[in-house]
């Protein structure tokens, strides 16, 4: 139990400001309960107030425990599974059981009080199953459109019963989670290792009492991967994975998540249209397209952050005699980016085609969506080019936001101009294409800088 408490401490100090802010919600809720016992809507008010901290703290905990679990498997730390299970129970007791008991004590209905299990479940799912939460929100929008207000539904007895059942199910699944460490996680850990995880492994080792006894199992898996990479190198093949292994960048294309996302996107469209009839409706399709855009941006962040935090490793690799020339390296990176963006286009194409066949999507929406997705593709491509050929990465976030804004405005103007038969369409097209064209020229003139943005660590 002592290890579990140290683990919780490790989780809570991870993002102290957020933890403190959300803790304040609990304090506020307690104050309301203490000063306003038995007003007509006290129960609903308390539940509403506790949604944010409960969801947030569980999201933080789930994310942190997930990272720690990956580290513990990678490092073969003994005793971690038990410590994690105890830490999870302690979190459930502290963040759900205590507030529920308090609420019941001040006269709130037990069923209503138990509803705060639902935000905890959403927090966990947000980290473990991001796309599911997205489609969950879609479902809530759907419910909100049935004619009754969402709060009527949530605070009605049936709504509460469903939410409590849903929350309890997710919590039980989460509590059983430590018993099922997947082999895949072991293999992925070295790829996804980052500075945050490195920092966490030390505190983790302290929390669960390193040194490791089971590290050999990890080494066997790691060595097997390295063997195949070294075979590539001996055969003078500079494959993507060979190049990016040294900076811990995951380059594997996984078809299963993509197929799941295609199925979920199509299912979401189907559910929406079951509720709203078979007439085309832009809301659900628009949300699916927005998800595709978010998928692209997430992929960009993963590659960009990995490149920026591994400057030392890149420095060592670039000085090795058989490391490829900058132009060849640029080609490999562009290939990696193309796969990342291309799979999202594939996802969108499949969902759009199926939706179109079913008659849920009007033809001109396809053009709108394709233009929007193209704008995101152009802005991401431009951000890569501009950031990776520059000497310094200062102001990168602002720059990326400006590029995205330009491209999206261009797309909007183009669509508006086309719809209205206005010359504004040309201005939109120019806004959409110009940054991308300039970035392509920059990349042609100056190959990718490797090490990337080396000056960021000098500041």
């Amino acid at each position, binding site marked *: 139990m002592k290890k579990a408490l140290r683990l919780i401490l490790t989780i809570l100090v991870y993002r102290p400001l957020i933890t403190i802010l959300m803790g304040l919600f609990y304090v506020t809720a307690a104050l309301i309960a203490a000063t306003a016992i038995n007003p007509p809507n006290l129960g609903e008010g308390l539940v509403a107030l506790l949604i944010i901290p409960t969801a947030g703290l569980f999201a933080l905990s789930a994310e942190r425990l997930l990272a720690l679990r990956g580290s513990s498997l990678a490092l073969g730390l003994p005793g971690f599974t038990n410590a994690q299970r105890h830490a999870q129970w302690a979190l459930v007791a502290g963040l759900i059981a205590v507030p529920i008991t308090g609420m019941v004590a001040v006269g709130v209905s037990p069923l209503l009080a138990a509803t705060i299990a639902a935000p905890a479940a959403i927090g966990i799912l947000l980290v473990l199953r991001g796309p599911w939460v997205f489609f969950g929100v879609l479902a809530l929008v759907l419910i909100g459109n049935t004619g009754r207000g969402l709060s009527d539904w949530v605070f009605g007895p049936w709504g509460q019963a469903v939410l409590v059942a849903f929350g309890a199910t997710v919590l039980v699944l989460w509590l059983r989670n430590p018993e099922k460490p997947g082999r895949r996680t072991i293999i992925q850990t070295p790829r996804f290792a980052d500075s945050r995880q490195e920092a966490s492994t*030390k505190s983790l080792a302290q929390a669960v009492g390193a040194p490791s006894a089971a590290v050999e199992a990890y*080494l066997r898996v790691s060595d097997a991967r390295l063997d195949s990479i070294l075979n590539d190198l001996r055969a003078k093949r500079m494959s993507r994975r060979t190049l990016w292994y040294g900076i811990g960048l995951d380059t594997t294309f996984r078809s299963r998540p993509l197929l799941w996302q295609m199925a979920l996107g199509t299912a979401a469209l189907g559910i929406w249209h079951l509720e709203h009839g078979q007439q085309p409706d832009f809301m659900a399709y628009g949300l699916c397209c927005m998800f595709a855009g978010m998928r692209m941006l997430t992929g960009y962040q993963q590659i960009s952050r990995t490149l920026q935090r591994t400057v030392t490793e890149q420095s060592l690799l670039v000085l090795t005699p058989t490391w490829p020339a900058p132009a060849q390296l640029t080609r490999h990176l562009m290939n990696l980016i193309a796969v990342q963006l291309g799979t999202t286009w594939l996802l969108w194409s499949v969902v759009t085609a199926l939706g179109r066949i079913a008659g849920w999507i009007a033809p001109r929406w396809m053009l709108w969506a394709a233009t929007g997705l193209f704008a995101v593709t152009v802005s991401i491509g431009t951000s890569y080019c501009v950031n990776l050929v520059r000497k310094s990465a200062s102001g990168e976030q602002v720059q990326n936001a400006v590029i995205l804004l330009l491209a999206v405005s261009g797309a909007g103007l183009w669509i508006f101009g086309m719809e209205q038969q206005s010359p504004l369409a040309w201005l939109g097209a120019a806004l959409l294409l110009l940054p991308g064209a300039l970035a392509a020229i920059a990349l042609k003139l100056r190959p990718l800088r490797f090490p990337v943005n080396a*000056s960021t660590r000098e500041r």
Partner: protein
Amino acid sequence: MQTAPAFSAQNVHKAFGSRTVLEDLSLAVAAGQIVGLIGSNGAGKTTLLKVLLGLLPADSGTALIAGEKSDALSPALRARIGYVPQSSTQFAWLNGRSMLRYVAAFYPSFDWGYARELIERWKVSVKTPIGLLSPGQQQRLSIVRALASRPDLLVLDEPMASLDPSTRLAVIEELARERERRPISMIFSSHITQDLRRLCTHFVILAKGTVALQESVGRCEQLTTLILAGDEHALSAMDQQNMLLVRAERDGERRVVLDQAAALQLAGALPPSCRIRDRSDDLDATLAEWMA
């Protein structure tokens, strides 16, 4: 035929935003020289080393390694370079053995026998993930990686910062042995001047973004620091005669570093309104004065 310097920089300028780190810096490290690079924190040592290695583009000026431009080194020359970066945490997600296997695959001449010998002698842990090693262990591993490719152009950026005294000594002895076995050119950045004196043939002192001194260790050991006090005009007049190698004014005193013969000459020529308040022949104190 004249051999190209092992490392050279000509009029290099490098700034990060509004902060200038290297200003019109020129430097030449001849083949076979072991240079100790000294400078206070923020003097630009790491930046200079990165520019020399082509890892950081200079705003202007040229950096060369063995006559080749640093930003376009040939594979043959890259095979001759060994680099120990300042940050000892490298490839934190791998263990030492995997890291060495991966890096070795890029070096045709990687000497596994030598690597194993160093790992055993320095007691380097190669089974534990690097991110979990102590900074000292990480540093040892980094040095093993750099030496095992048998480079003759070595750049070490504060490699001793995390090492205990006995390992420091062992590393210095190993580098000295390597120097005796084969011709090596080396730039060794450190704040520990004792280590540098054991190993180096020359000192380069960086101050205010430029090379303040580049001299042989023997010549540096003959330097004297004087703290002069007295009439400011008389001291300034001596400055104008260019008698003083380094000057710094602090609290109404003038600190100068000059060789011992010049110190004697100065003592004799000092006007009555001036006096020597303190004198030191200690090299460490002199170097510290230089960097101040």
